[in-house]
């Protein structure tokens, strides 16, 4: 067994004796004897580091690694510059706690302040928090931010990611808040009927940009209609797409949320990732979670601290705006480093490559008989096609050539292409699908 305790059993015995105790059981005198264990059943004996590494590696190797991933739906296979790993692997960042002691935590605090700034720039908002758990919980927290006594109905576009919709519903169930689904038409929100669809008690509408089917929503028009009804607009966005598409802030959204995974965080079977949340000045004090602010120190220099804590649970307890008390700092750091080194240029390139390659694949796939686009609106890097055969058949055929197919959805397939897919891989995809269809 590999232990991590820097003392021998003799040293510990000595410590016990110095405390006037015979053995460790004297430390647990307050535990009722009927429930105190002498051993822990159901757990194997410990093993050496080398054996543990082998055991875990064996599990990792039971998974299939796909050289080409054409599946998105919330998690995206974008390229991660190596420096992101180097920085996020620095021991101080890895092992620090939440930066309560500002004097010895300026590194973490400043990295979050920089992250907040970059999220504001990316989303066109005034203020960002230090991050929350993921995109879905950010959407849910964002929806709860908009509730007021006479505005307690949350609207969610039915073409958002189902995982996000489910999460909003769960948070709403907790607070006994009503959630209404807003029906989309031809894959997108029907702006013409939007105003009539919202009731007078509407607190907010959550829409996703691009939506679950990859289609680009007309955020500006949606924002107008939602505001006419006195409600707030929350836009859940795919950060890479914002390297190309107008920011939600510039289009009139009140809150921007999203999952920062595409910004330098590996797919990792869905987590950990990071949820970003940003808003306009008017709603800063409703923003949940940690926020870092700039101030001065006793020596007159610039300093960073956790701020606006009067919103938070450790001060307000049952009156807090949320129970959240951590962020995903190390993931936010990854996103910060990613945006810093990629810059506007790199982020735009990632967006445009994803866009062009997706459109290339769509065009080529649609040359195959029986495959056509389900929707005809503009899309970013995800698109739905019909399939002339069972989705499982396509999935299996592509699997054999090392390609993870699009996601089977409603009898069709939701494809996703990032900058990582080469033309060669896309051509192989088309060829393989053609083969599977004609069989």
């Amino acid at each position, binding site marked *: 067994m590999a232990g991590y305790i820097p003392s021998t059993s003799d040293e510990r015995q000595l410590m016990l004796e110095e405390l006037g105790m015979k053995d460790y059981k004297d430390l647990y005198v307050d535990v009722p004897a009927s429930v105190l264990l002498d051993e822990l059943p159901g757990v194997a004996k410990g093993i050496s580091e080398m054996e543990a590494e082998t055991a875990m590696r064996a599990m990792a190797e039971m998974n299939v690694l796909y050289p080409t991933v054409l599946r998105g739906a919330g998690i995206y296979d974008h390229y991660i510059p190596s420096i992101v790993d180097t920085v996020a692997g620095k021991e101080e960042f890895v092992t620090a706690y939440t930066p309560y002691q500002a004097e010895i935590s300026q590194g973490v605090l400043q990295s979050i302040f920089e992250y907040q700034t970059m999220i504001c720039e990316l989303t066109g908002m005034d203020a960002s928090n230090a991050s929350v758990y993921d995109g879905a919980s950010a959407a849910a927290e964002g929806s709860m931010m908009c509730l007021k006594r006479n505005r307690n109905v949350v609207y969610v576009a039915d073409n958002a990611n189902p995982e996000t919709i489910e999460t909003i519903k769960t948070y709403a169930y907790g607070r006994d808040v009503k959630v209404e689904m807003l029906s989309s038409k031809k894959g997108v929100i029907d702006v013409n009927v939007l105003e009539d669809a919202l009731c007078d008690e509407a607190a907010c509408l959550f829409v996703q940009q691009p939506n679950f089917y990859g289609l680009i929503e007309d955020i500006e028009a949606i924002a107008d209609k939602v505001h006419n009804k006195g409600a707030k607009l929350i836009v859940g966005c795919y950060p890479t797409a*914002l390297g190309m598409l107008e920011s939600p802030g510039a289009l009139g959204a009140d809150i921007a949320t999203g999952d920062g995974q595409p910004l330098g965080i590996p797919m990792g079977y869905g987590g950990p990732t990071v949820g970003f949340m940003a808003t306009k000045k008017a709603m800063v004090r409703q923003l949940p979670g940690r926020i870092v602010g700039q101030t001065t120190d*006793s020596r007159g220099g610039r300093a960073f601290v956790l701020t606006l804590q009067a919103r938070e649970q450790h001060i307000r307890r049952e009156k807090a705006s949320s129970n959240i008390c951590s962020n995903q700092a190390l993931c936010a750091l990854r996103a910060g480093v990613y945006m810093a080194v990629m810059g506007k240029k790199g982020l735009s390139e990632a967006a445009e490559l994803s866009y062009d390659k997706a459109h290339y694949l769509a065009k080529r796939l649609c040359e195959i008989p029986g495959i056509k686009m389900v929707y005809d609106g503009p899309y970013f890097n995800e698109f739905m096609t019909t399939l002339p055969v069972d989705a499982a058949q396509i999935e299996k055929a592509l699997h054999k050539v090392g390609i993870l197919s699009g996601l089977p959805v409603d009898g069709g397939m939701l494809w996703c292409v990032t900058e990582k897919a080469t033309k060669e891989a896309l051509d192989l995809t088309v060829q393989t699908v053609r083969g599977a269809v004609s069989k």
Partner: protein
Amino acid sequence: MKLIFERSTPGHCSDYLPKSDVEKAPRPEKFLRKAKWMLPEVAEVEAARHYKELADQTFGVVSGFYPLGSCTMKYNPRLNERVASFPGFTNIHPLQPKDTVKGCQAVIDLADEMLCAVTGMDKITIQPAAGAHGEFLGLLLMKAYFDHHGQTQRTKMLVPDAAHGTNPASAVMVGFDVVNIPSNANGCVDVEALKNALGDDTAGLMLTNPNTLGLFDPQILEITSLVHEAGGLCYYDGANLNAIMGQVRPGDMGFDVIHLNLHKTFSTPHGGGGPGSGAVGCKDILKPYLPSSFLGKDERPEHSVGQVRSFYGNFGVVVRALTYMLTLGAEGMREASQTAVLNANYLMHLLKDVFPVAYDHICMHEFVLTLADIKKETGISALDVAKGLLDFGMHPPTMYFPLIVPEALMLEPTETESRQSLIDAAEKYKLVKEKICSAPDELRNAPLTTYIGRPDEVKAARNPILRYEE
């Protein structure tokens, strides 16, 4: 030091991506980005130096003694980091076909099995991303249970006054009314007050045991059966599990649902505030309400509350925690908790003549000092002492918590400190104590040796500057 934006020079960048190998598709002009925006423009070396400087201004567990009470800042074994970075874990899409993610499923199943064994629960879900998120889910399970059993009148959640601030905040997010239960003179639950609060409107009790004073409540079996007799459920806040890992199981103490902080007890690193994992465990009666991933198409329990985030949870954190559990095994986990408790008692023993202990009793993994009298006599506060400790190169204890102890300092040394490092730390506490008389102004102005002096927090809140502006 400079912000990354202040290191920016127009045109500086690195080429990370190749030129396009496909034709350019027509652009959706109407939707393209037109408003002005800004990101840093730095060459990679400039970024590398920037983040090196930031890391140098960050205090981690590797930097020194870090006895932050209630946070379990134990050493984070490096093996766990290596394992979590295996491509077979990092490069897996959550929606891959089930037969291509058998390794991920094996990790989750084994973690479930081992965590159930440690906690005495019947089922674990790893979906919640943090402790507070776990509390939220755990309480949702209770709410769904009562809704399903037609007991919607059960709206009161009993929370001891020593509880973590997240407990009442989580209860409110689930629509419960919070009822505070006072502590008795020994720092444990006032059982008479509990009895008076119980009724057929009781949804349950949220309890941390050992509590935030570091005391194990010896009345625990009576407390949980009283709640059950009243028809309520018992929630265990697992923040302090490190004291009892492998010694006593929450399930045996009578708890129905718990959350664990894998980033505390199970050694996964805190990352400056996350990611963690707030895995939730429950008894069979609450299994029908557990969450699942909609797109992940895991079998959804009959009365599932839905989901509290996307996909399955912070899988990468669970990989680390599982590696830790495999390495330690049953006897290693017991040795860890025993040593954590021993170290806390040893440090308390070394310090109790330096600063008064709030409850002078055998403690569990942590204990609380109170500087109320010192403040009254000298004007030096717990904050001053904490800041004074910074000048000795160590992380201060948790300050001003729990709220029921005035001028509190809460210390949790964890098992990964040696006898000598505890003795050394105590010596430094003594030096700070001496300064209260010999150099009080030095303490009021402390820290003097850190990168910055005390920040003006009032100014930060009154005039919030939350982002850099050119």
